[in-house]
């Protein structure tokens, strides 16, 4: 077994790198190395501070599908470790292993199956119609502001049962959370009346406190006055006589708003940029709408809204011939796996007919497979389907302003004009 691995000559964790887009050349260099590369991270004087950078598609899948070796519950699923009390306070579906994960996931899974997501099809199509009308009426503008941000937040809020007049407030909170994934925060620790230590809050952000409070209030309302919405379904959800605890509910509500909003916004933004850069692909979709499904996969592959997730080895293991030690961090770089030419022919070509169903933007195929995957697919496919239907093309009229984050592949703004 190959136990000595050269340090990579590259750094992929510097958040500012991502202002210019994913550092694909660096990931290509990591993929080309034999075995798995050790990436220093954290204290530069501590040789043990770092993680195994898993960058090829095959090993991302292997790590993802072997949760008994590569745990989500230990340490943290982000690059840095959390102290035990913070991890406990922040624990959501993302940071659990079986059997807790299985129980929690099963409690709410029925809400998100492809079959049950179909019931939100009409609502989604109508939101898409509205935002595209707004975009066309304004003769373009910031695509994020006009289309990519309002679409998913309106859909998830409608599904959850949040009143539409609160949408702006929750978008604002969500924006602050994204900031929490970067290096700088603009909010004071006591913003929104927060009194919790920031390290106990998701994204170390006082906006998380505000979202918890909002979710708890809504849950109370629905407990007393059930409605036909997802918050009601969640407060009523029961499996094996168990219900969600208050802490499980608030972390899940937070997760749904953030993950159901921010990541889809990212996919819709990168998708728009891709179609603006490749008008031939929009023509193709216009002429063959049966490509919608593979086009959705390609938008997802292209966007990779979440760049990585981390696992922690529960035992000594071997990955691609490299020895992984108990307790070491193992980071799956979806951003890299989605450009692995061992799996994708000509990976830097945007090709809506690619197919294969093997993009890793919903994770590497293990039990933490994105809970909202089928909702995200519905939103993405509805948008590009209606654009094809309308014969609406896009011309990019400004630079892409990106998030300085090594975790989310966010686009802050990009100006677009409608083109017919």
């Amino acid at each position, binding site marked *: 077994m190959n136990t000595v691995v050269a340090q990579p000559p590259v750094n992929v964790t510097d958040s500012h790198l991502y202002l210019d887009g994913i550092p694909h050349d660096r990931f290509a260099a990591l993929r080309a190395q034999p075995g798995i590369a050790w990436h220093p991270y954290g204290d530069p004087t501590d040789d043990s501070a770092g993680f195994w950078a898993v960058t090829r598609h095959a090993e991302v899948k292997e790590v993802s599908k072997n949760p008994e070796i590569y745990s989500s519950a230990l340490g943290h699923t982000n690059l840095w470790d959390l102290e035990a009390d913070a991890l406990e306070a922040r624990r959501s579906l993302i940071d659990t292993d079986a059997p807790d*994960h299985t129980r929690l996931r099963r409690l709410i899974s029925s809400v998100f199956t*492809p*079959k049950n997501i179909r019931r939100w099809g009409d609502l989604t199509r109508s939101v898409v119609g509205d935002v595209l009308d707004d975009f066309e009426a304004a003769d373009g503008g910031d695509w994020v502001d006009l289309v990519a941000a309002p679409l998913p937040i309106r859909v998830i809020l409608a599904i959850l049962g949040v009143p539409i007049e609160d949408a702006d407030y929750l978008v604002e909170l969500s924006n602050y959370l994204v900031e929490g994934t970067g290096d700088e925060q603009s909010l004071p620790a006591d913003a929104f009346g927060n009194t919790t230590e920031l390290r106990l809050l998701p994204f170390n952000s006082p906006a998380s406190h505000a979202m918890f409070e909002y979710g708890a209030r809504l849950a109370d309302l629905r407990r007393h006055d059930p409605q036909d919405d997802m918050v009601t379904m969640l407060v009523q959800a029961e499996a094996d006589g168990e219900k969600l605890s208050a802490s499980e509910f608030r972390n899940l509500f937070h997760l749904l708003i953030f993950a159901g909003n921010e990541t889809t916004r990212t996919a819709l933004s990168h998708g728009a940029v891709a179609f603006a850069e490749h008008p031939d692909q929009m023509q193709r979709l216009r002429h063959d709408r049966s490509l919608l499904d593979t086009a959705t996969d390609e938008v997802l592959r292209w966007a990779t809204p979440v760049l990585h997730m981390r696992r922690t080895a529960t035992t000594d293991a071997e990955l691609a011939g490299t020895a992984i030690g108990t307790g070491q961090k193992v980071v799956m770089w979806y951003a890299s796996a989605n450009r692995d030419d061992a799996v994708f022919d000509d990976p830097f070509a945007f090709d809506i007919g690619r197919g294969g169903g093997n993009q890793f933007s919903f994770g590497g195929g293990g039990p933490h497979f994105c809970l909202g995957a089928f909702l995200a697919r519905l939103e993405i496919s509805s948008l590009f389907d209606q654009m094809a239907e309308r014969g609406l093309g896009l011309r990019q009229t400004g630079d892409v302003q990106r998030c300085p984050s090594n975790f989310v592949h966010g686009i802050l703004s990009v100006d677009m004009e409608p083109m017919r």
Partner: protein
Amino acid sequence: MSDPVKLVVDAEKCIGSGMCEMLEEATFLIDEDTNIAGVVGEGLLPADRAAAVIDRCPASALSIAVQN
């Protein structure tokens, strides 16, 4: 055409994602009470499609039944 094989669900592992139900809706159904996938009827699929749905199951809960 590959020969059909019989599939089984490990109810302990299933997380109810609905992936199998989406890929092979004539073969799998998520139970509305338990949110666990079950096999409809014989649970037979051509080997290539069986391999695909086994691979795509996020919970690694599907397998080919052991013949006695």
